[in-house]
């Protein structure tokens, strides 16, 4: 929350946000599974103006060997932004922010992936942000779940991502870039709708205990909506494969 001074009206008198949405509405989300040729699984997600490409490789051997685990598979995640994905050109070297988000997403996916099924090996999830617009970590997590499923990795559930937050003193769903910059709080959530577990949770900003509760509730609603789009993307891929046969 930059708390940046700005003239932007985040919420008008009719409860409409700066991009025309209502407080409990997500941006438009479209997901396409199986978009890369070489990757074992992949997905392309547009989450508002976020554009993210995810590729999954594995299960595959681990080098060096001592990094592998005889009892379980390991999940490795890389969240990375293209230099042209943000307003001012980003240095291509991974930033500390990217290192942290990679770790947070990894720990959000681990509860969903049945790692014990592929001991001694690794599954690599590479998330490439081509265009960023606030909420990239939720979008990347959402796409990563689809790409993992597309790769045929055994999973307990999909993890859907959607942020809740606070702007102009209202609790809102799916914080966009302007709301992230000028708003009061951003609370990204990763959620497994079937298992009803929150696996990613962070917060920038200030919330009262009551607002915190409301944010979690509205955020879970958002994740449930995103979940339907994830499932549809996988069905489309499966159906398209069926057609080809």
């Amino acid at each position, binding site marked *: 929350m930059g708390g940046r001074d700005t003239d932007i009206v985040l919420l008008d008198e009719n409860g409409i946000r700066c991009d025309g949405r209502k407080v409990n509405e997500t941006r438009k989300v479209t997901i396409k599974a199986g978009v890369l040729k070489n990757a074992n699984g992949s997905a392309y997600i547009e989450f508002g103006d976020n554009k993210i490409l995810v590729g999954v490789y594995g299960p595959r051997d681990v080098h060096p060997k001592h990094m592998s685990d005889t009892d379980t598979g390991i999940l490795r995640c890389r969240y990375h932004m293209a230099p042209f994905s943000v307003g001012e050109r980003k240095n291509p070297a991974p930033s500390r922010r990217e290192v942290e988000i*990679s770790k947070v997403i990894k720990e959000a996916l681990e509860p969903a992936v049945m790692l014990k099924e592929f001991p001694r090996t690794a599954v690599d999830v590479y998330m490439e942000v081509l265009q960023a617009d606030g909420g990239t970590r939720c979008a990347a997590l959402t796409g990563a779940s689809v790409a993992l499923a597309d790769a045929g990795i055994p999973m307990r559930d999909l993890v859907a991502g959607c942020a809740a937050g606070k702007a102009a003193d209202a609790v809102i769903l799916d914080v966009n870039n302007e709301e992230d910059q000028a708003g009061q709080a951003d609370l990204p959530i990763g959620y497994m709708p079937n298992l*009803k*577990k929150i696996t990613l*949770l962070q917060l*920038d900003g*200030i919330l009262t205990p009551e607002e915190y509760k409301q944010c979690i*509730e509205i955020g879970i609603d958002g994740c449930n909506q995103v979940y339907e789009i994830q499932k549809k993307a996988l069905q489309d891929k499966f159906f398209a494969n069926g057609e080809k046969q």
Partner: protein
Amino acid sequence: MSDGLIIDQLKRNQILDLLKEGKRVDGREFDESRQLTIDLNVIPKAEGSARARLGDTEVVAGVKIQPERPFPDTGDKGMLICTAEILPIAHPSAETGPPTPDVVELARVTDRGIRESGMLDMKQLVLEKDKSVIGIFCDNAVTDHDGNLFDACSYASTAAINSCKIPKYEMQDDAPVKVEEQFTEPPVTTLPVSVTMAKIGEHIVVDPTIDEWSIMDARITITTNSDGNVVALQKGGHDGFTAEELIKCSEMSIKAGAKIREIIKQSK
């Protein structure tokens, strides 16, 4: 199964069995932090400093203050940066070399807890708008690691910043010049305090030791401010929380945090 895993498994079983009886290995309540000791001014040459001992976890935070050229879009505010490193003296597993993802996360969570709380009124830390501002660097050095570094760094940072002395600077020929022996109090608005909880099986415990840490399923760090509002969150670990658990965690963090805040206040 590797040896390390077998030991972890045994340790987990032992801890879980006790938790089922409502007990923790070291006798604490589930919502009880370990004893916290704050020693201020342990690095007298720094502008502020504190040693936080949380059980057997120990962190030294030092505050350095110097004028900085502000970034173009934040010329009306001072700068505040917190970092953290795990010194190799702290634990046999601590590594020298570039920071691991664990350490990067520790540093960023520590920084966010202080910064997002608005602990300092940064608008009061401007020497000349767009030209020179006060920069406050709070570096945390973990010297002994018995788990829950998040909270130990939070307490050391809050205590060190809360008790620092800001040197006076005057602008001369467009450059800041230090006025010897003149200091002001930091513009503190609130005292952020983080409380980390581990989920082990169905149980949630506050301030996990290194043994609890190594076998937990998931963790959450919740930072609250003096008003009892939530100002930062970080979930970790390889499992998730239900919405109900997260509400309960926020209540635990407000309650445990209030006690910690008193200790930090009284240390000054």
